[in-house]
């Protein structure tokens, strides 16, 4: 295992290349610029193409064009830029275009700030763009996990013909950790007979129409039903979650991304004080691992759950839906890019215990 100390953004970019991504379209925005910078150097070396688009809108529509042409393609941005991309994300979902979108979340709303945040949870998992669609959303909590999820993200995008989002906070993009890149010189690319590549009327595939417009109600219903069925399969097969120390716990923390790591540190602090606390960490935010979250929190002996977020109470809604009222679920979080400390989290649990 060859470890390399890498910045998160660079590791993500290299992992995408190892997963067979050969096209990247993006627009600069802090704190994810290391991704396009890295891609601009590396993609030509592997016969790919990096293009700096004139806007986020153009970038996601280039992704639509390249994904529709059968390529493994990616774009990345940070919160305000992801807002701009929503038109294209909705289009790609409707047109069933596989692609990977990285969001290195920064503070919002509006221009917010450039520090790490988790304020885009709702946008990522509840829509963002218009219409009935879902995005598969992965929320890694370390650089190694991000690297490991990249091939999965591209495979899932291709398998289900859907955009996939990597939702990370800016800290994961900017920090450095040792990573094993698991070099893969020959990634398996599935055939895409539906793609626009130039059509031979005498050939054996149908003419490609990459489209999100279904003006007849009945036709749109067919699409929506097809997506609905596909999303049901994704919900069955693609949920990912980590549970940590949950058995016999008195309280359950629920968090994702960087904050989940801080929660683990809090679990240890509390352990030293004789308080058994567990953590349930969704790795897919959609499909949300409701069963695992429910089972961890509904256990006998668990008094309550606490979600910890770098946002003003977003994840907590899905956790409450998952437990459906069987246990109290409290929220602790700081918006505006304030990262809760392990000591703060431990203190909050101790307060809950005293109450």
């Amino acid at each position, binding site marked *: 295992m060859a470890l390399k100390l890498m910045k998160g953004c660079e590791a993500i970019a290299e992992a995408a290349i190892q997963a067979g991504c050969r096209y990247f379209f993006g627009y600069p925005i802090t704190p994810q610029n290391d991704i396009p910078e890295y891609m601009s150097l590396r993609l030509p070396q592997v016969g790919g193409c990096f293009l700096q688009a004139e806007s986020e809108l153009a970038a996601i529509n280039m992704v639509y064009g390249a994904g529709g042409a059968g390529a493994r393609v990616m774009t990345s941005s940070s919160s305000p830029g992801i807002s701009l991309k929503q038109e294209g994300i909705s289009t790609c979902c409707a047109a069933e275009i596989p692609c990977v979108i990285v969001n290195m979340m920064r503070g919002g709303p509006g221009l917010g700030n450039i520090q790490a945040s988790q304020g885009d949870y709702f946008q990522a998992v509840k829509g963002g763009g218009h219409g009935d669609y879902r995005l598969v959303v992965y929320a890694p909590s370390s650089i190694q996990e991000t690297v490991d999820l990249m091939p999965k993200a591209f495979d899932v995008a291709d398998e289900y013909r859907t955009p996939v989002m990597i939702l990370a906070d800016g*800290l994961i993009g900017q920090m450095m950790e040792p990573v094993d890149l698991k070099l893969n010189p020959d990634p398996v690319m599935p055939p895409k007979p539906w793609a626009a590549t130039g059509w031979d009327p005498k050939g054996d595939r149908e003419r490609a129409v990459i489209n999100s417009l279904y003006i007849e109600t009945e036709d749109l219903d067919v699409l929506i039903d097809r997506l609905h069925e596909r999303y049901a399969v994704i919900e069955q097969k693609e949920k990912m979650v980590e549970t940590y120390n949950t058995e016999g716990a008195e309280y359950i923390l629920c968090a994702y991304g960087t904050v989940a790591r801080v929660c683990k540190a809090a679990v240890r602090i509390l352990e030293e004080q004789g308080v058994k606390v567990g953590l349930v960490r969704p790795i897919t935010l959609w499909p949300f691992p409701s069963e695992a979250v429910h089972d961890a929190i509904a256990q006998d002996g668990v008094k309550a759950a606490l979600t910890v977020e770098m946002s003003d109470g977003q994840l907590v809604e899905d956790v409450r839906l998952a437990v459906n009222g069987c246990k109290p679920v409290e929220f602790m979080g700081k918006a505006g890019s304030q990262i809760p400390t392990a*000591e703060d989290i431990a203190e909050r649990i101790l307060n809950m215990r005293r109450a």
Partner: protein
Amino acid sequence: MVERNIFAGFGGQGVLLMGQLLAAAGMMEGKHTTWVPSYGPEMRGGTANCSVMLSDEPIDSPLVTRPTSLIVMNRPSLEKFESKVVPGGSIFVNSSLIDVKVSRDDVNAYYVPCNEIAAELGNDKVSNMIMLGAYLGKAKCVDVETVLEALLEKLGAKKAKLIPLNREALLRGAACIE
């Protein structure tokens, strides 16, 4: 072993590099490590800082709120972070540029005239390596030669001629601790 360090100074003093070299050397010696650049409110005020953790165990939170060692290259950094250091921890002060002493008596303070030693070595740019050497002289968490190996990887073979100067800087820094 767990080292939770904050390196801080003006932009341009090489504090981010100091942290990266320590993290890379830690990795090369089989330790778990994380490097996190300035974040949150700590970003304000024109200082650059990074947090570096080294541990024999996998690292949960990469955020350093209570450092075991604070390495400061300028006075605003000392003022900003002094109170955060754990009791019994260490503060490494660049005494060339910081004209005050550590005010706490429950921490170990080390005064390293980084810029003066760098001038003696004939290159102002190695003041950060002198400071890193001082830290390593105390913490002894990675070998100086591993740090140089990490530096060589960073510089590339073309700049290998800079290694002896940097070795000298690391050793002079370490000598300040003894």
